[in-house]
């Protein structure tokens, strides 16, 4: 047997202490790392998509679709009815617009004003938006209608959160 393979008592103790110390350090650091990246791992409850309509129903003309979401709002937990104006563009893209006027929060209607049959119209203060949801300058709203996140799965349209533009 050669001397090279011999482990001295001092070396043995060094290895053992380093190993044990390493485990202890890892045991302390792991929860810290977990805390630090926790918000990233958490599934976002707000990002939930809801099935709203069958894709076949969607036409080039904006249609109103309604669905129900559970909402916890401070003291209250309630079912809230959500609404969207959904249509298909010339390029076969699906567009889902929030019906909440960006001026003071009334509900806008598609083509309800006879003078502007191809615009969204707000009955409160005559705010108008073009078909893509962009506010018409000179009317009260100052921002476009928010767009809903959307995805299509198995022929159904799912809508998520609305995004300001």
């Amino acid at each position: 047997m050669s001397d090279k393979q011999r482990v001295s008592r001092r070396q043995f103790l060094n290895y053992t202490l380093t190993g044990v110390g390493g485990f202890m350090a890892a045991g302390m650091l792991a929860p810290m790392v977990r805390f630090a990246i926790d918000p990233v791992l958490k599934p976002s409850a707000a990002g939930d998509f809801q099935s709203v309509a069958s894709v076949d129903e969607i036409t080039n003309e904006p249609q109103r679709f309604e669905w129900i979401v559970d909402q916890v709002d401070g003291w209250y937990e309630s079912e809230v009815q959500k609404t969207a104006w959904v249509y298909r563009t010339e390029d076969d893209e699906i567009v889902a617009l929030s019906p909440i006027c960006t001026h003071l929060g009334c509900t806008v209607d598609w083509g309800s004003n006879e003078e502007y049959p191809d615009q969204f119209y707000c009955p409160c203060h005559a705010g108008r938006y073009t078909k893509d949801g962009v506010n018409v300058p000179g009317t009260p709203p100052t921002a476009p209608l928010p767009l809903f996140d959307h995805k299509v799965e198995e022929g159904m349209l799912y809508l998520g959160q609305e995004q300001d533009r």
Partner: protein
Amino acid sequence: MQWTKSDMELYVLEKEYVDTLVIPLIPLYTEVDSTIVNGAFQRELNHLTTHLLEKDYRGRILLAPDYNYIAENYEEEIRRINQWIEKFNNQPAAHVFLFTFDTKWKRWEKELKGHLLWIPSMSDRNLHSSETRSYVKEQVLQMSELIKAYWE
């Protein structure tokens, strides 16, 4: 807009756009047990209806706090309610609507300093059924058409 802190903060900034006041009239009955139940049902239905109306026109309609009254002496209440309406005169609310299910107000309509919106109450039904929901929606639609006629 509702009579809540967050809505009122917006209201004081944008009040020139909010020209319509809706006051729910809520009667209080205490004499007979069945009227107590019916009164509470009317109150719930009143809240559902006015909140639905407010939701669609929140940028122009201010939903006032409930006007509660004892359903006995209407002559006296007329005086008090007109006082209440006058209190809003320093606000830019040009149109005042009083919303109720109580038939008795109809008789005093001319003396009120606001437009009376009276619709018949439903008989005691389940508030959360889909028929009730569609009934209330239909009533709200009719009411909003009426209110819009005053806006033009």
